[in-house]
């Protein structure tokens, strides 16, 4: 607990000695928001790491070969991720529920193992070195980006898009019959999520001196981790996944006493939350977002918290 002690007693010192940790929290927050967007619209997409990889590799490659400034490379990576989001979304969004999840996993692994691992330009298995990384300098950009992304997601979820998404996640067919262009709104959510993930990937690449196609970076393990942010935090409200991200990233520090058993604690938390508080820490809807029309409704007296 001396982690928190330092946080409150010596904020400046804390900032200086934990800069990289704070930056990682910011990036995880952006990823969590990307997850929020798809889950809010009723889609269980695990494609975020694939788009992260696109954002990361694009910005690093541009920096290596064309010597573009950092912001330009990240912007390009983000745009490319969005384009890929459209290409992947078109065939994939016809699928529902667990089939969509599996298809997105297939995309992530096909990109990682099939494409990135085999292209000489991406450095194949070794990945790429990123000499223009700036771990300490990137913190401000990351924190500002994080706030902006969360704000954008919040405004969208409150507006017309948000209402359409909520209707779609409740009952796709009913939404269709109300005249909502379901396919278009689902695509918008998917592409928006891809853009955010690509952006986070580009930012993260500039914290590290390398990008590589490892499983913990851009594979299924990462996808599960991001999903955990949303589940623990609750995906009914934009801050839910962000809180989840904060909690999960800090878990090893909070439970430092658990030491090497931290993963057991994480797994136990996951089970406990999904069973006893499926709406997540923040609540307001939580996993009710993915409920098929024929599944029996929860009891009318189900507790809902705010």
């Amino acid at each position: 607990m001396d982690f928190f002690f330092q946080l409150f007693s010596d904020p400046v010192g804390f900032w200086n000695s934990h800069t990289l940790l704070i930056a990682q929290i910011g990036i995880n927050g952006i990823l969590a928001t990307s997850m929020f967007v798809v889950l809010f619209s009723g889609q269980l997409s695990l494609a975020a790491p694939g788009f992260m990889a696109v954002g990361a590799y694009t910005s690093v490659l541009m920096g290596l070969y064309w010597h573009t400034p950092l912001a330009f490379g990240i912007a390009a990576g983000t745009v490319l991720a969005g384009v890929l989001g459209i290409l992947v979304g078109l065939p994939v969004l016809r699928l529902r529920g667990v089939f969509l999840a599996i298809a997105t996993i297939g995309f992530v692994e096909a990109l990682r193992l099939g494409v990135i691992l085999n292209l000489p330009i991406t450095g194949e298995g070794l990945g790429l070195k990123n000499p223009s990384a700036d771990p300490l300098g990137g913190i401000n950009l990351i924190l500002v980006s994080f706030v902006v992304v969360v704000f954008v997601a919040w405004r969208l979820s409150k507006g017309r898009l948000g209402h359409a998404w909520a209707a779609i996640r409740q009952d796709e067919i009913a939404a269709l019959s109300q005249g909502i262009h379901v396919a278009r709104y689902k695509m918008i959510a998917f592409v928006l999520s891809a853009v955010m993930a690509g952006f986070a990937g580009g930012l993260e690449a500039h914290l590290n001196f390398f990008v590589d196609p490892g499983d913990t970076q851009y594979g299924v393990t990462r996808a599960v981790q991001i999903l955990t942010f949303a589940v623990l935090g609750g995906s009914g409200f934009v801050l839910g996944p962000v809180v989840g991200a904060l909690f999960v990233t800090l878990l090893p520090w909070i439970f430092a006493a658990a030491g090497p058993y931290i993963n057991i604690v994480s797994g136990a938390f996951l089970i406990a939350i999904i069973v006893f508080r499926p709406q997540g820490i923040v609540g307001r809807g939580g996993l009710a977002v993915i409920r098929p029309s024929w599944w029996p409704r929860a009891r009318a007296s189900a507790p809902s918290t705010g």
Partner: protein
Amino acid sequence: MDQQLLNAIFIGSIYALFAVGYTLVFGVLDILNLAHSAVFMLGAAVTYSLVMNHGQSFWVACILGIAVSGFMGLVIEHVCLRPLRRRQAPPIAALISTIGLALIIVAAIEQGQPGQFFAWLWVDGPNSVAFPSGTIPNPTWHVGDLTLEASKVAIIPISIVLMLVLGYGIRYTQVGRGLRAVAENPRAARLMGLDVDRMISLTLVISSALGGLAGILFGVALGDISPYIGRDNVEVRGLAVIVLGGMGSIPGAVVGGYLLGLIEVAALVTLGSNARGGVAFAALFLMLILRPQGLFGAQLRERI
């Protein structure tokens, strides 16, 4: 016949055996049991530990390993699935609770070090170990150009027999009919007097026992046992297999397993050894887009 074809068949058998458990649970419960790969690993780890650290004979250890895996099926049911069913949770919730249990199982083995809490279970921590040669009789035969290793050859009849038995059981026994009833419509099954909870427990036990056995065969034939063999080798490939074969279809899982083994080795030989990893997922992705029900699955209904 080429040695590579043999390689494909051996690894395909393991994929098939693993996928059968996966698809069984999906067929009966509509749930993807993501703790299955952890049970796969646990079967291998427990068997190894019993032989190396507790002095059991290999055959006794195998039986105990399978029993422990089957028992994990009960754990999955009682910890991850039943509480959710009681609370009317959506199926996606089960995906997540099984992920949580998988994390716990892998972490427990990972932390099994001498002198630590889990040392009774496993002492090699995150490292990769193998049965020392000589633990199991494993003669190697040379037939023409081919090398046949007993442990690998044995996988084929074991897998096929088990899959046939399972198929027969599901189709022709009363218990099997009960399982199919639950798969069709759990509410109706309950109304007709079937003990749905018990059927579900049975499904998980059978599925997990098969998964554990697949893990033991993997550990023996490939000489690699570590906390990560599930995650690295079969977890995501298992998904590819059941998608190829049709989710919920047991013959589909079998055919899909061998098909994947063949596709991988073919890609390795023709496209270069690098292609092996990615080809499974390219196949998965394509199958989901072109024919989501897989080779043997029924037309997808509006289920989520």
